[in-house]
C-alpha cells in the first residue's frame, strides 16, 4: 500500500490536484457535469487547444515563444475552406494544403529567428499580423460557409464509442512524448532550452534544430486549424485569435518553464485538461459569461502557484520520510 502511494504521489502535481478538486466541485454543484456525455464534450472542446499547445510546448522548451499560432490556425482554416468552396478541391487535399501553409509560416518564423538572430517575439508576432491579414484578404473579411462537410468526421466522428478527436490527440501525444524522451533530437530540444551555448559546443546543430521546431509548431497549428474548421463548419479569419495566448497559458500552467529546458507534453496535457475542465464546469454550473472570465483568471494563477510551490506539504513530507 505504501508502495502504491509512493508511486502515485509524484503524479499528483499541483495542476493535477487542482483539476481533480475542480471535477469534484463541479460534480457536486451541477447535475450534468459528471456524466459520460459531458466528458465527451470536454474532450471535444479541449482537443483543438491540446494540439496547438503541443507545438507551443516544443517552442517553449527551447526558451522561445510562438505568438503566431492563433492567426496561423485561422489562415489554415480559411485557405482550406476557400480551396474546397471556390477551388472545388478535394477536402483531404485542401486540408493538406492548409496544413502545409501553416508549416511554411512556422518555417519562416524559425528561419528569421534562428538564422537572423531576432528575438522570437518579433518574427512570430510579425507573422501573427501577416497570417491574420492574409486570412482576412482571402476571405474578404467574410465568414466562409457552404463547403463540403466531409471534414466534420474529424471532430464529430466516433470510434469504439469514443470521440474521434480523442484518438487524434492521444496518438499525437504518445508520438511526441516518446520523441522527447527517447530520441536524440528530443534530448537535444531540452539541451538547447537548458543552455544553448553548451548545446552548440557539444555538437548539436542548434539553428537547424530550432528552425525545425518552429516549423513543427506551425504544422501543429495547422492540424489544430483543420480540427477547428471541422468543429465550426465555417471559416473566419479572426475566430482562432486568442489561441496564441491560450496555448502559452496551457503550457505554462501545466508546468513547463518559460525559461526553457524543463517540462514536456505530459505537463501540457494536464494544463489543457485544467483549462478545459474549468471552462466547461463554469458553463455547466451556470456562471454568468462575464464572471467566467474572472474565474478563469483566478484559476490560472492558482494553478500556477500550486505547480511552483507544492500545495501538498503533507505528501511531500511523506515522501521525504520514505527516502
Amino acid at each position, binding site marked *: 500500500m505504501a508502495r502504491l502511494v509512493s508511486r502515485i504521489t509524484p503524479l499528483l502535481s499541483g495542476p493535477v490536484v487542482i483539476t481533480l478538486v475542480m471535477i469534484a466541485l463541479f460534480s457536486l454543484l451541477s447535475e450534468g457535469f459528471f456524466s459520460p456525455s459531458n466528458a465527451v464534450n470536454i474532450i471535444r472542446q479541449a482537443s483543438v487547444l491540446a494540439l496547438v499547445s503541443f507545438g507551443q510546448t516544443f517552442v517553449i522548451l527551447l526558451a522561445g515563444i510562438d505568438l503566431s499560432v492563433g492567426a496561423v490556425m485561422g489562415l489554415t482554416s480559411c485557405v482550406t475552406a476557400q480551396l474546397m468552396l471556390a477551388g472545388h478541391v478535394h477536402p483531404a487535399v485542401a486540408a493538406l494544403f492548409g496544413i502545409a501553409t501553416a508549416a511554411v509560416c512556422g518555417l519562416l518564423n524559425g528561419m*528569421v529567428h534562428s538564422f537572423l538572430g531576432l528575438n522570437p517575439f518579433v518574427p512570430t508576432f510579425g507573422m501573427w499580423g*501577416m497570417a491574420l491579414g492574409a486570412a*482576412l484578404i482571402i476571405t474578404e473579411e467574410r465568414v466562409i460557409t457552404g463547403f463540403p462537410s466531409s471534414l466534420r468526421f474529424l471532430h464529430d466522428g466516433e470510434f469504439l464509442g469514443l470521440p474521434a478527436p480523442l484518438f487524434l490527440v492521444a496518438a499525437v501525444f504518445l508520438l511526441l512524448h516518446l520523441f522527447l524522451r527517447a530520441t536524440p533530437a528530443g534530448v537535444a530540444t531540452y539541451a538547447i532550452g537548458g543552455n544553448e551555448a553548451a548545446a552548440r559546443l557539444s555538437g548539436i546543430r542548434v539553428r537547424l534544430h530550432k528552425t525545425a521546431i518552429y516549423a513543427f509548431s506551425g504544422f501543429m497549428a495547422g492540424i489544430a486549424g483543420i480540427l477547428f474548421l471541422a468543429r465550426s463548419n465555417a471559416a473566419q479569419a479572426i475566430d482562432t485569435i486568442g489561441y496564441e495566448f491560450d496555448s502559452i497559458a496551457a503550457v505554462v500552467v501545466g508546468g513547463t518553464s518559460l525559461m526553457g529546458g524543463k517540462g514536456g507534453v505530459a505537463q501540457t496535457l494536464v494544463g489543457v485538461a485544467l483549462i478545459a475542465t474549468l471552462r466547461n464546469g463554469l458553463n455547466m454550473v451556470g456562471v454568468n459569461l462575464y464572471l467566467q472570465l474572472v474565474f*478563469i483568471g483566478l484559476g490560472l494563477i492558482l494553478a500556477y502557484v500550486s505547480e511552483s510551490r507544492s500545495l501538498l506539504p503533507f505528501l511531500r513530507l511523506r515522501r521525504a520520510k520514505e527516502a
Partner: protein
Amino acid sequence: MTLSSRALYRVAAVTAILAAAWIFVPRFGTESNLINLLRQAFLLALVATGVSLTMLVAGLDLSIGAVAALSSCLAATVIVQGHVALGVLVGLAVGALGGLLNGVMIAKLKLPFFIMTFSMMFIVRGLALTYTQGTSIHGFPQSFTWLGKSFVGPVPMPVVLGGAVLGLLYLVLTKTTFGRITYAVGANAEAARFSGLAADRNLIRVYALSGLLASLSGLIYIARLNAADADLGMMWPLEGIAVAVIGGIAFSGGEGNILGLILGGIVMAVVGNCVNLLGLPARFQDFFIGFVIILVVLVDHLTQKRGKVAKSLAVHSHSVAKEGGP
C-alpha cells in the same frame, strides 16, 4: 543620452516612409489627414507606454487593455454625474491599483509576468463586463470630452497630452534613480540585485506605472469617443507590442528609448492611414504591419551587428597598430 546612430537610422526610416506616403498616396498630405494621423500616432504611442516600461524590465503587461476598460468604465459612472475631477482620479487610482497588484505578485510571489498579467487580463475584463453588463456609458460633460476632442492651436489635445507624458517619462527614465534602476534591472536583474539595487521595489513601481498609464490612455480614449464600454482596448496589448518593437524597445529588456514610441506610433498610424486612403480593405493593415515589424527590426538588427563587427575590427587594428612595427 545622445542621439545614437541607431536612433538616427530609425528617424531616417520613418521619414522615408512618410515621404513615400506623401508622394504616392493621394490626399495623404492634406492638413486634415495629417492632423488625424498625428492624433492616431500619439494615442498609439500612449497606449504603448505601459507595455514598453514593462519590456524595459524584461517583462510584459498583457492586462493594459482590460485595466483601461475597467478603470474608464468606473470613472465614466462618476463623470456622467458631473464630478469630472473625482472621476478622473477614480480611473487613475483603479489603474494604478491593478498595476500594483500585478507588480506585487510578480516581484514578491515570483509569478511569471506572462501568467500574472494574462490572468489579470481575464479577471479585470470580466469585472468590467460584469459591471457594465455589456452596455455603454455616455453623455460626458464638455469639461471632460475636452481631454480627447479639443485643440491647442492646430494640434489635437491627445497629441499634446501624449507628448507631455512621453517627455515626462523620458526625463524620469534618463535623469532619475528610478529610471537607471529600471534599465539596470532589465539588463540583468540578478546583477542589479547583487549590487544592492532594490530590484523588487522597482518592478512593483514599473507595473503600477503601467497600470496608471493604461487608465490614463483609457480616459483620453473615452473622452474622444464620448462613450465608455467594457470592450475598450481589446487589441491594446498587441498594438502596444507592435508600437514598442518598431520604436526600438528590446524584448530582452534594458534597452530602448521611450521617445522611440512616437516613431512606432507614426509608422502604425501611417500604415493604417494609407490602407484607408488607397481604398484597400481595412484588414490589409494587419498584413502590412506584420511585415513592417519584421522589416524594421531586422534592418535595425543587421545594421547593429555590422556596427559591432566594425567596432571590434577597429579596436583590433588599433591595438595591432599600437603594438606593431618592427
